[in-house]
């Protein structure tokens, strides 16, 4: 159940590899795995069928390209087709020529409407707009307070009048915006189930009374097979203009996006990637396709790494490594950078082929904190000359950092081994090849920042993923054979 699709996907590759031509048969077998991957990603079962029919039509009609393994070709077709289904990125909000632009937000309970209203308002304000939020969720307790607090956080006024029905309240909100010279009105509505006729009629009424310029469905990325039903019902009632997908900061594959695109054909306008109000991003169909196929979201990883690492710092560090000048201070900086990138496990999960290896692994991130505390307790001199740290100094460092001299000893040993290895450790491909077959990595291996640093641009360039994986597997195979031989 928890096996990573990436692994299986690679094995499809390998099965296709060497077969030379694309026959009906091997296509079928490969697509069965693709089907599985899509279903596990929560793409609706009906949508999967249509999708695979389209892929089959494409693959069979196309002649096998010279020099390309047929498996790869099929995977490419699947990948491209997924992107095509999800549609081009489009996060433009068309504004009204005259008067305030009205945006209506609708969706199921708990999908993230109120938060997204706040996020949108914040984004528009930053773009120089004068938004108004309207609190029209009269169902959920304290929903109005919630929006008011969010409005307060971003300095956007929130309109609400007690005692009114939601459609009337929204209509007045739009009026109020006009009087107050606001150019965008965002209507936050109550969550409702698509089968709740009374509430669906209510939101249709809001739509009628306010004639929004944009109506967005807010949907949780974790949604399963049911996504098609709710999306269709909301679209039928409100003729949606777009969709906002929330909670993509989770580890769901997000196949619901494919389902709803295939069902209602409306563009994904934005995605929510966190609880904070700045966590609203444009949609990237290419990344989503890779994520749904379980191929790892490498681009997100690179972005995170980039955000955490200062490019010039990284260059400097590379220089120092080359000149064998890497010291404990550099080590400390790297540890900090890694921590800024967030959970190590999350990050590893983003790398194709690596995720599976770590899924069962319990990474003890406290080792990073311990290391930092110890280095923090060292003098400048000690950091630049770790070789000279003697027993007396070790004792002092241990005392200062609340660790033991053994811990300090371990850190120093780790550091020195690492320094030695550094010359040889060029890039991620090698790092991947070095991963031991046993998923229980030692803290040293985990704490080896060379695995992630110093130049993420170079290390995780997208075209390299597959090669890295290949190399890594070959290396692993070789090692296994070697081990076998040795045993004999």
């Amino acid at each position, binding site marked *: *159940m*928890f096996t990573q699709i990436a692994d299986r996907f690679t094995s499809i590759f390998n099965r296709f590899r060497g077969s030379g031509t694309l026959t009906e048969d091997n296509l079928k077998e490969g697509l069965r795995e693709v089907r*599985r991957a899509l*279903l*596990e*990603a*929560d793409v*609706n*079962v*009906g949508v999967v069928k249509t999708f695979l029919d389209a892929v089959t039509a494409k693959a069979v009609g196309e002649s096998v390209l010279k020099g390309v393994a047929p498996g790869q070709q099929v995977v490419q077709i699947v990948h491209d087709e997924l992107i095509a289904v999800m549609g081009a990125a489009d996060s433009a909000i068309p504004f009204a020529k005259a008067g305030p632009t009205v945006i209506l937000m609708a969706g*199921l*309970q*708990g*999908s*993230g409407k109120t938060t997204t209203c706040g996020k949108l308002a914040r984004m528009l304000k930053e773009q120089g707009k004068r938004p108004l939020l309207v609190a029209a969720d009269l*169902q*959920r*307790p*304290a*929903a109005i*307070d*919630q*929006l*008011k*607090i*969010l409005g307060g*956080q971003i300095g956007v006024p929130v309109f609400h009048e007690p005692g009114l029905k939601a459609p009337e309240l929204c209509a007045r909100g739009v009026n109020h915006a006009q009087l107050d010279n606001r150019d965008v009105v965002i209507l936050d509505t109550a969550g409702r*189930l*698509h*089968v709740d006729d009374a509430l669906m009629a209510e939101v249709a009424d809001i739509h009628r009374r306010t004639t929004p310029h944009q109506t967005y469905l807010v949907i*949780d990325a*974790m*949604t*399963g*097979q*049911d*996504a098609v*039903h*709710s999306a269709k019902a909301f679209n039928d009632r409100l003729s949606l203009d777009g969709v906002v997908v929330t*909670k993509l*900061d*989770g*580890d*769901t*594959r997000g*196949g*619901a996006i494919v389902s709803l695109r295939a069902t209602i054909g409306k563009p994904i306008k934005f995605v929510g990637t966190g*609880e904070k109000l700045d966590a609203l991003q444009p949609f990237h169909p290419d990344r989503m396709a890779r994520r749904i196929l379980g191929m790892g979201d490498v681009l997100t990883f690179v972005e995170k790494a980039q955000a955490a690492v200062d490019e010039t710092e990284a260059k400097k560090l590379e220089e120092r490594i080359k000149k064998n000048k890497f010291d404990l201070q550099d080590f400390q900086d790297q540890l900090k950078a890694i921590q800024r990138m967030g*959970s190590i*496990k*999350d990050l590893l*999960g983003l790398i194709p082929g690596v995720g599976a290896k770590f899924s069962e692994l319990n990474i003890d*991130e406290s080792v990073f904190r311990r290391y930092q505390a110890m280095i923090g307790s060292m003098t400048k001199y000690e950091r630049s000359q770790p070789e000279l740290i003697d027993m007396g100094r070790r004792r002092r460092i241990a005392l200062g950092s609340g660790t033991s001299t053994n811990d300090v000893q371990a850190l120093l040993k780790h550091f020195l081994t690492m320094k030695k290895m550094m010359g040889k450790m060029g890039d991620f491909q090698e790092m991947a090849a070095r991963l031991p077959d046993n998923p229980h990595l030692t803290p040293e291996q985990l704490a080896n920042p060379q695995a992630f640093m110093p130049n993420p641009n170079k290390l995780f360039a997208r075209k390299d993923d597959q090669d890295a994986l290949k190399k890594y597997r070959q290396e692993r195979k070789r090692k296994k054979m070697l081990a076998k031989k040795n045993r004999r």
Partner: protein
Amino acid sequence: MFKALGRFFTKIKEGLTKTRKLIGGALRALIGLGRTIDQTFLDELEGTLLAADIGVAKTEEILTELKRRYKAGEVAKGEDLLAFLKQSLRAELQAPDQELAWAAKGTPTVVLVVGVNGAGKTTTIGKLAARYKQQGKSVLIAAGDTYRAAAIEQLGIWAQRAGVEIIKSQQGGDAAAVAFDAVAAAQARGHDLVIIDTAGRLHNKEHLMRELEKLRRVIQKRLPEAPHETLLILDATAGQNAVQQAKIFKDAMGVTGLVLTKLDGTAKGGAALTIRRELGLPVRFIGVGEQIDDLQPFDPDAFVNAIFGDE
């Protein structure tokens, strides 16, 4: 009392009828035709199970077993098939005898409520508080979500509706301290039940999971055997990610049971089957609406019958 009961049945029926229309309809059509079990038939059946979010692995398991039985001559007709399917699903879903594992007399029972964002934690707490208050228990609820905007106000309204006491702090306050205070207050004032709300969090955020573990440790400083129950709230509309949620929350927090919310929609919550099989976590209650009495003890027969469209 009878009115409430009647309302309950209507609710369940309403919710489950919608379910039935989708799944039951398809299956009934299959079976009603008196068809033999051939590949097309199996494909259709597979589609029906998958559409319920039962998941690929579980679905395949069911189909394999079905084929085995067919070959062995145990299943030949549609009726046999339905019986087999129901039985295999129901067998896995048995809930424990007790709704909650109650603490020894004189000690408050502590229930910790956890889950991803927007799953229905706060609402479920309101419903649970009302349920046990009605059963004559003295209930205290704790506003342990100090993060989300107006989460404390939201739970405050539920406390009023249920007529129970609430322990709370300011937004941005220390959730663990609130939980600790609640347990201490319950001990001092002799409450029977303390239910602790927590901020929604995605299970893949390690720092947030650690924060939750800390909250539990802090409670244990006051009452070592607490929490007596840790309930994971799952949204029935969630797909296969629910399994991952359950796995990680269980590992980190020792979850003891599930509450499946929003079953009043068309989603079936089939992921609960996989969770039960892989993690052994039983569903304790289901949420069937936004009102205070829209909470029901989980009934595996009703759940399975609803899936297959039988009363």
